[in-house]
Each structure stands twice: as structure tokens, then as C-alpha cells.
């Protein structure tokens, strides 16, 4: 195994070395001015300081660890000194996102359907207002020209106009490279083709998607069992939720709109698209009249109004609905008056607020919301809660009165100890599908098993390297661009991930078709281009090929 890994690594590096050979040759022809083999800038200043590069351990993420190691070697090739630091997930997030104590950091950003509207990728991740401790703009990117666009797109109610702005924003990001956007890490989720049918892997989530869970159909009994390599923390929608929690909360609780398989919000508890008036400041939604909660109580417009007020009172989630100024209802319609224009309102608010029964949550004090335990977790969603023992299993039953009843009568989720352990469960018949991506070798085993198959899916989230622009020399665009040229993106997808995923050069994935700008500047592995970029930035190399500032 180790042998194979080394060969692969050498091969990937060789791909970049061709560029290097040309680069070095180019340098020597124009850079012998001082007679000691130095090149680049005419007069050399201080050596560029060592770069601290934080990457996941191979236990935390073997794929990203490998590309991290290769990238660091490439950076050394072009004259940087690199201090490579491998950390476990928690320590890594703490150092890079909370403490912001890093120069370069290789982490992922998840692409759940809730993030398919470009706002989070454009505004939250790159606007200068989100650079604080724990904020999403970890590089500390601050560009007034960009900020203007990020603010503008939020207010543009017309999708085509907004798209123009989002395109322009992507161009600026590609030019400035606050991060190297590496690849959208799509993958494979194995399932038992002999036991379940109507599998529907969706963008960003594969078999964990809402649409798969209501579509999947058992072939020999009435139950579908899935495995996932972690426990559910909570089913309380008012608590801080991790992605695996949300994937089940949304089965039990409905929303006015749901993000469809195509990534666009579609009416769910709402009858139709919202009526948008007042230049994008008023949204009116008519709700369905055929909905009941799992305890038989009807879902009324009062429940909807109650829900939005509940969110406004919630210490955890009030920011989600802070854009709403006032709510009024009439008949089966609810109208939201916004304080300012907010183009992603349907996707990011109406599509994410879970509908609560007032007769259960009505008496809960705001400060108790996140600790509240509704024993039966009554919602109005397509599945109703049956029973749950956190470390053993979660049992759901199809809600017969739902307008979109799931295909399976029962749905069981078991938490696994690890991805490979779950694969054993799949092979032995204890589970029907798993919501996690195994190692490439294990995927081959699935292919060879006639009872099993792999469901392939694309991703909108990505692996990326963030550069800490609060520090020199990473505040220099030339340096970041040069570093980006050293990242073997194609090789990452083709060899390290065995073909799973797609290379990206933009913050918006090509699979998010409407919003993706295909014409942004591209940074493929090219050490020659990296050196040229540094030369343009006024840097030079000493006799030992180490990088110096210009004098």
C-alpha cells in the first residue's frame, strides 16, 4: 500500500516537474546578473519567510492529506520554505477558523442543498464583514470592489441580473485567489441493488438527500435501513444541528419550500411560487389546505405564523429570519414584509424554516427552545417519528396522510462505527444503503458484488486552501496566485480520488449550473507559471533556489 502510494505521489509530482524544468531554464537565461546563480528580481531583499500550511491528518481525511503533502512539496520546489502541520479535524478547525492562526489551511466546505443559492458561497465566505473569529471568511479577504458586488447580488430580485453580478464576483475571486478552489468532491454511496429500488442520489448529498429517502423502495419487505457513520445528536430543529441531524429533522418537519433535486426551491407546504411585490420587499405565500401534523391536528396558517415568530425568538436561529420586519396573514395566505431586499429569501429562509405545531411548542420559553424535548417529535413531514435510541437506531414510519407519502413504510437509520464497518453491514444484509463514501478499493469490491451497486453523485461543496491574507506575504496577490499554480487539481480528482469529483476554479460549482461562471481564470498545476507570477511580483531566487523579496 505504502509502495503504491509513493509511486502515485511521484507520478503526480512528475506531472508538474515538466513545468519546473522549463521554469528553471527560463530563469537562468535572464538572471545571471549577480553571478551566483540567482534569478528573478535584480536585487534580492530578505528571504520570504516560512509558510505554515495546516492540512488534515491522513486519518481525518486521507485524500486531502495526500494532496496537501504534494502541494507543500511543490511550494518548496518554487522556492518557499514550508512548515507542514497535520491536524485532526477539531484542532484544525479551531486553529484555522476560530483562532485564524495559520498561513495556509486545507479544509473542505460542505455543499448541502441549503447552500445552493450562491449567497453563502459569495457573501458569507468572502465578504469583509465575515472575517471575525469563527466567521466563514477565513482568509480575511477584504476587497471593497468585491464587497459591493456581494452586497448588490443579495438585493437583485431579477435572477438574470443577479446572475450577472454573481458571475462578476466569481471573476474577481478567481483573479485574487483568496483561496485555491480545488475540487467539488462528488463521490459514490454504495447500496444494495438486490434489496432496494428507486434510488435517487442528488446533488451534494447523494443517498442522504431528502428526495432519495422518500423515493427509495424496499423490494422484499416494508423497511429500508440505512447506515451513517455517526450518531444523530438531536431531532430538535431549534438546536444547533450538524448535517446528519438536519437530514432527518427535515423528514419529520416540513418547510414552505424545499430545495428540489435541481437545486432550486420548489413549493412544498406552499401551493405555488411566492408572490413577490414592492420591489422584492414583500413575499406572499399561500399554504396548502390538506396538511395535518402527525398527531392529527390540522396545519393552519396560525401554525405558520407561530413558526416564524418562534424563529425570531430563538436565541440560536433568530439571525436566519432577521430580514423579516413584519408578518401578517389573511385566509390561507401569509405575507412577509422584509426590512430590505433579500433575493435568496425563498431558498434561504422560506426553504429552511421548519414548520412547528403551535399546540406543542406554544408554551415553550425562548431560552428553553433548544433544550426542549418533544417526546414524539410531532411535525407534518412525510415521515413520522416512531422511536429512537441514539446509539442504536432511529425508527421512522411513513405518514400516510402526507401529500407526498414516502415509498417505504418504515425507515430505519443506524449509526455505524466507521465507513468500513458499515460496508460490512451492507454486505451482510443488515443495511440497505449507506450515506458515506468508502475508499476507492472498497468501491471496487461493491462493483464486483452482484447484490450491490454504487450511486454516483456530484457536489457543490469543495476542498480548498485558504490563505491568511492578514499576514505577509499572503497579502500579496502574486504569492497566492503562484501558490495556486502548484496545486495538482486534476491529479487530485483522477488519481487520488480515483475519478470521484470534478476540478473547480470557482467558488460556485459547475454542477450549480445557473450560477456557475465557466469563464473564470483557471489555475492548473504549472510550476513555470507559478515562478513567472512570482517574478512579476518582484520576487527573486538566490543561489539555493530559495525565494526572496525584491530589494
Amino acid at each position, binding site marked *: 500500500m505504502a509502495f503504491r502510494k509513493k509511486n502515485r505521489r511521484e507520478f503526480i509530482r512528475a506531472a508538474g516537474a515538466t513545468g519546473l524544468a522549463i521554469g528553471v531554464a527560463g530563469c537562468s537565461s535572464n538572471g545571471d546578473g549577480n553571478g551566483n546563480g540567482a534569478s528573478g528580481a535584480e536585487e534580492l531583499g530578505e528571504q520570504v519567510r516560512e509558510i505554515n500550511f495546516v492540512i488534515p491528518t491522513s486519518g481525518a481525511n486521507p485524500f486531502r492529506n495526500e494532496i496537501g503533502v504534494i502541494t507543500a512539496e511543490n511550494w518548496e520546489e518554487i522556492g518557499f520554505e514550508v512548515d507542514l502541520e497535520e491536524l*485532526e*479535524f*477539531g*484542532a484544525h*478547525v*479551531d*486553529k484555522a*477558523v*476560530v483562532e485564524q492562526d495559520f498561513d495556509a489551511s486545507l*479544509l*473542505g*466546505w*460542505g455543499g448541502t442543498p*441549503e447552500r445552493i443559492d450562491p449567497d453563502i458561497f459569495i457573501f458569507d465566505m468572502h465578504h469583509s464583514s*465575515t472575517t*471575525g*473569529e*469563527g*466567521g*466563514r471568511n477565513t482568509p480575511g479577504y477584504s476587497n471593497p470592489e468585491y464587497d459591493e458586488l456581494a452586497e448588490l447580488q443579495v438585493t437583485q430580485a431579477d435572477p438574470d441580473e443577479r446572475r450577472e453580478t454573481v458571475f462578476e464576483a466569481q471573476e474577481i475571486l478567481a483573479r485574487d485567489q483568496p483561496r485555491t478552489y480545488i475540487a467539488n468532491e462528488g463521490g459514490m454511496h454504495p447500496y444494495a441493488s438486490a434489496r432496494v429500488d428507486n434510488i435517487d442520489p442528488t446533488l451534494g448529498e447523494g443517498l442522504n438527500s431528502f428526495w432519495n429517502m422518500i423515493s427509495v423502495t424496499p423490494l422484499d419487505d416494508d*423497511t429500508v*435501513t440505512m447506515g451513517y457513520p455517526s*450518531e444523530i*445528536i*438531536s431531532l430538535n430543529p431549534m*438546536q*444547533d*444541528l*450538524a*448535517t446528519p441531524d*438536519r437530514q432527518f429533522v427535515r423528514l419529520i418537519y416540513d418547510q414552505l419550500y424545499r430545495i428540489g433535486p435541481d437545486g432550486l426551491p420548489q413549493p412544498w407546504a406552499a401551493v405555488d411560487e411566492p408572490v413577490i411585490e414592492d420591489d422584492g420587499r414583500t413575499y406572499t405565500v399561500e399554504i396548502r389546505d390538506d396538511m395535518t401534523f402527525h398527531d392529527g391536528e390540522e396545519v393552519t396558517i396560525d401554525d405558520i405564523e407561530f413558526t416564524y415568530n418562534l424563529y425570531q425568538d430563538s*436565541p*440560536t436561529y433568530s*439571525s436566519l429570519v432577521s430580514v423579516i420586519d413584519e408578518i401578517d396573514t389573511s385566509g390561507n395566505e401569509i405575507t412577509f414584509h422584509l426590512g430590505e431586499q433579500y433575493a435568496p429569501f425563498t431558498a434561504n429562509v422560506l426553504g429552511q424554516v421548519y414548520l412547528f405545531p403551535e399546540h406543542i411548542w406554544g408554551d415553550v420559553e425562548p431560552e428553553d427552545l*433548544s*433544550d426542549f424535548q418533544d417526546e414524539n417529535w410531532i411535525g407534518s413531514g412525510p415521515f413520522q417519528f416512531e*422511536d*429512537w*435510541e*441514539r*446509539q*442504536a*437506531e432511529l*425508527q421512522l414510519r411513513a405518514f400516510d396522510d402526507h401529500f407526498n407519502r414516502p415509498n417505504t413504510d*418504515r425507515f*430505519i437509520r*443506524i*449509526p*455505524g*462505527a*466507521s465507513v468500513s*464497518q458499515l460496508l*460490512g*453491514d451492507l*454486505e*451482510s444484509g*443488515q443495511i440497505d444503503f449507506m450515506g458515506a463514501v468508502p475508499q476507492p478499493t472498497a468501491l471496487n469490491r461493491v462493483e464486483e458484488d452482484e447484490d450491490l451497486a454504487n450511486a454516483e453523485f456530484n457536489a457543490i461543496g469543495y476542498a480548498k486552501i485558504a490563505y491568511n491574507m492578514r499576514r505577509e506575504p499572503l497579502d500579496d496577490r502574486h504569492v497566492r496566485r503562484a501558490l495556486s499554480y502548484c496545486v495538482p487539481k486534476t491529479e487530485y480528482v483522477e488519481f487520488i480520488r480515483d475519478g470521484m469529483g470534478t476540478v473547480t476554479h470557482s467558488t460556485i460549482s459547475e454542477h450549480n449550473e445557473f450560477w456557475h461562471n465557466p469563464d473564470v481564470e483557471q489555475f492548473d498545476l504549472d510550476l513555470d507559471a507559478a515562478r513567472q507570477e512570482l517574478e512579476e511580483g518582484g520576487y527573486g531566487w538566490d543561489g539555493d533556489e530559495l525565494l526572496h523579496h525584491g530589494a
Partner: protein
Amino acid sequence: MGLREFVIRRILQLVVTFWAFFTLLFVLFRLVPGDPTTMFLLDGMTAEQREQRIAELGLDQPLHIQYMEYLSQLLTGDFGQSFIYREPVIDIIIVRFMNTIVLMGTALFFAYLIGVTFGALMGWWRGSRFERGGIIVTLMARSSPEFWVGIVLLSVFVFWLGWFPSSGMRATGGELGGGFVARYGSIDFLRHLFLPALTGAIVFMATPTLLMRNTMLDVLNADFIEIKKAEGLPERTVLYRHAARNSVLPIVTVMAIATGAAMGGSVVIETVFNWPGMGREMVRAVNNNDYPVAMAAFFLMGSVVIIMNFLADLAYVYLDPRVEYE
């Protein structure tokens, strides 16, 4: 010194040990980078939500205040609430602790039963083919990694023969919860228990076997064994009543320590067989910076080690009258 004084002194020592142990745990966990919000940061928690949660948990307070608060809470017998699950720690721990006790208890019971018998016979039949073969088998068991033993058993009994389920504690889809008997009393449960317990038994067996054999060899060289033989007692009586009983003393110490350690569960066995026990919970709690759960888990496990050692000391006196309380 009488028994009573000895016990009182040992209990006072226990209190100091517990305090030192607990303080060390507290400091260690706070030194680990990250906090309970870390795991949510890439999952949608915003910077404001994070700050609010940290304040809610009191983690923005100076360390010594957090320490005093936790200490006073602990003195009232309250382990507090999980930072991640937001449920009482005791509810989370107790189920997993029981799961671990049942699994490890079974494994240890068979490991020591088989190990002691086997070791005694190996000592008795010194130099025989039985002894030589036994040593090889024992050393193989001792040097096999837990995960490997587990995977071999899985391959044979699950994937090849299909006799046992591959993971978990019971078949899915049935009624959840229930009391001790409902949980651990069914045939279904025993089927799930078999392979992980067997893995544990194989791995744990080597120590008592080798220890028992070695002590047996010492005891068998003692004069009184020759005398017993000379008295014409049946071989069986000499073996069990005299040789084996006198060799069992070190086993008691080792067993006490092993039991304590086993209560922490085996992360490896629990991972291979997806057994929801203490080991995995501890790893999860540490990874997620869920301090109250991690502290309680280590505390519980450490307590068992400390108490088992205490009991072993007491048992020595009973087993060997020559030992005195000093």
C-alpha cells in the same frame, strides 16, 4: 493495624487519589484545542451563534471559575449536561456503561476461566507437547491485534458461514428501550454478543494463561507439593487444592487491573462490531470537545480501576493470611 483502621486509611487515600485524578482530567481536556462548537462551524453555525453558545456554556469564564463550578457540581453527584447532546451526562453514559460491562464482563469471565485452567494444566504438564503447543497458541493470541482477530472471526462466522450478525447489539426494527432483561436477556442479543465477546476473550486470555503457568512452575518446585505427593494424595487433589490455589494470588491483582481497564471498553472491538459502548463514546466525546461526557467517562473508568485495586488489596488478606495490613 486492624482491618478497620486499614480500610479508613485506604479510603482517605482514595479521596486524595480521586481529587488528583479529577483535576488532572479537567486540565487535560481544557488544554485540547477546540471547543464544543468546533464540530458545527463548517456545518452552518455562524460566528454569532458560536459566541452565544460559548457564553451559554460558561466557557468564556476564567478557567479557575469553571473548575470550581464543576467541582461543586460533582460533589453533589451531578455530572452535568452534555455540551453536544444537551442531555444529562448520566443518561448518556449509563446505557453505554452497561453495554460495556456486559460485553467485557463476558469476555473477561471466559478469558480468566479458560486462561487459569489452561495455564494450570500447562504448568502441571511441564515439558509435554501440550505445554509447548499451548505456549505457541497463547503467544499467537497475545500478539494478534484485536481488530485482526475481530475481522477474521467476522470473515468466517458472518461472511462465510452466515451464522451471526455482523454488528450491533440487536436486530433492527424491534421495540427499543426496555429494562435490563429486555435488553440483555434475549437470544437475539446473545447472537450479537458472541463474536465481540469471543474476540475479547481471545485477546485477554493470554495474560492469565502465561501468568498462571509461570506461578504454577514456582509453586510446583516448592517442598510442600512434594510432601503432598508423598502423602499419596490423588494427582487431581494436589493440582487443584494445593498447586493451583497457591498460584492464583498474582492472578487476582492482574484481574483487578484488567477489569478496571476493560470497563473503559475496547475502542477497537466496539468499532469492528459497532458495539455502542464506552470506548467509542469516549473517543467521540474527546473529538467533539464534549467535556462533561469525556470527564464523566474517564472518571467512571478510573474509579473502577482505583476501586478494583482497593478490593484486590483486601482480597489478598483473605487469600493469603501471611499478608498483613501495614
